């Protein structure tokens, strides 16, 4: 077992449990009746926000790997991506079941007439496609198509922040913070690509 694999082997269960902490916090708040006057809204916001945070953490993997030179960081990308999907999926189910109360007509109206929900649905669809194709076997079978599909995580990041931005009533402070983080993460990749094309031209 090489060094990188060993680190992944030891750290993975630890990071897995860490990723479940936001879920555990919410369960504890439900059990202790500590969700405030509007528990459904509190639950929906909690899962939505953690879904967005995991999307951003996943986008931070490559920059961190390149900046620190620690290759093993990349081993956590799939786990973070699947947790992003998990939190977003729960956020979606709460919306569908507790907020929209499974009223099909209301749900369809929302998806087609309320842009922030349309955007959220688009992001969710991409996340589902990525989660379904996340195993190593499918990755091998899909080849280059897999990479193209999974590059849409950048788009998901943009859609998720946009969804949040259009959802808030007036105070955009928090979505703005996420937008800045996202711009840094995407900006770093653009800078990287520009650097490599420059060296290619030079050689």
């Amino acid at each position, binding site marked *: 077992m090489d060094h990188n694999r060993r680190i992944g082997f030891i750290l993975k269960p630890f990071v897995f449990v860490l990723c479940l902490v936001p879920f555990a916090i919410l369960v504890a708040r*439900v059990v202790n009746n500590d969700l*405030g006057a*509007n528990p459904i809204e509190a639950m929906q916001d909690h899962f939505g926000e953690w879904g967005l945070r995991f999307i951003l953490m996943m986008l931070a993997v490559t920059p961190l790997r390149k900046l620190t030179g620690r290759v093993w960081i990349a081993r956590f990308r799939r786990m973070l991506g699947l947790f992003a999907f998990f939190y977003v999926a729960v956020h979606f189910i709460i919306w569908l079941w507790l907020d929209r109360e499974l009223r099909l007509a209301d749900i369809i109206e929302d998806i087609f007439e309320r842009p922030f929900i349309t955007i959220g649905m688009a992001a969710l669809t991409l996340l589902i496609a990525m989660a379904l194709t996340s195993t190593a076997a499918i990755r091998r079978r899909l080849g280059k198509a897999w990479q193209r599909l999974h590059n849409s995580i950048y788009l998901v990041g943009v859609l998720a922040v946009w969804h949040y931005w*259009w959802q808030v*009533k*007036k*105070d955009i402070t928090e979505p703005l913070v996420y937008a800045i983080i996202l711009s840094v993460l995407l900006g770093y990749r653009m800078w990287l690509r520009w650097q490599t094309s420059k060296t290619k031209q030079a050689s």
Partner: protein
Amino acid sequence: MIIRKPADIKPSEITSKDAYLNRRSFMQGGLAASGTILSGSALSAVVPQDRRGKLTGIRESEYSTSEAPNSYDDITTYNNYYEFGTGKADPYRYSQEFEPHPWTIEVSGDAEKTGSFHLEDFVKPHTLEERIYRLRCVEAWSMIVPWVGIPLADVLKQFQPLASAKYVQFETLVDKGRMPGQRSRVLRWPYVEGLTIAEAMNPLPILAVGLYGEVLPNQNGAPIRLVVPWKYGFKSIKGIVKIKFTSRRPRTSWETSAPHEYGFYANVNPEVSHPRWSQARERRIGSGSGGFSSIFSNTKQETLKFNGYGEQVAHLYDGLNLRKNF
């Protein structure tokens, strides 16, 4: 004008017997104590200055709903008051240091009598009434709130508005030091609201100074706020320092900040959606805070046109296109 009683309500929404008896006993206590106030005690007794001080001499109102009020906790920890922050718990968190006394209200504009008035002088000529009203927020949640206040129309009539007074404009205090939310430019300060003179003269709107028979808490708009039960909550302006009679329609804060989303009228209307969400249904706060299982049984309810106060106010809008004048 014939004032009809509010529409019938479902038996399931009727106040529990315990809650009802509690209310009766504080009313009776209040009536017994009112004699001392009228016989000339300190002016501050009209609106006690101590937090959670009991208000006395409160009379019941035929406009009150018999639906069970939300808990004091729900009403005082979950609301919007951007002067103290934009989160729902911010008003509770950041208003505790706020000192709402002494308080002066400036009355100006198209009226015979204008000037600055102490809060006590403003309230003193009127009998306090309890008005248990439905409150419907534009964000599609609702509560039942047992306000204590004085009818707005009675207050305004004292200033003898002129025929040119077509609107009444209200303004909230501006004080960055005492209202930390005003350090952000999320809205333009002061917060401005307004009603047409006909709306203001309707018997439903009150200037509230109390909640649950006690002094109005800071987070709910102390010392004095407007309550207009058939309009979305943001019309019910808090911490009022200015009242102006005017011939021009006031440019209200939310209308200024997002004119395609919030209008001047802002009547509760399930048929007219907010551009970003439906207004057809609402979540009644409190019915889901009884533990795990109640979260999943806390279903939404149909929103009523004019928040169920159509019998009293629908005539104000005869011939007005409510879709355009949202």
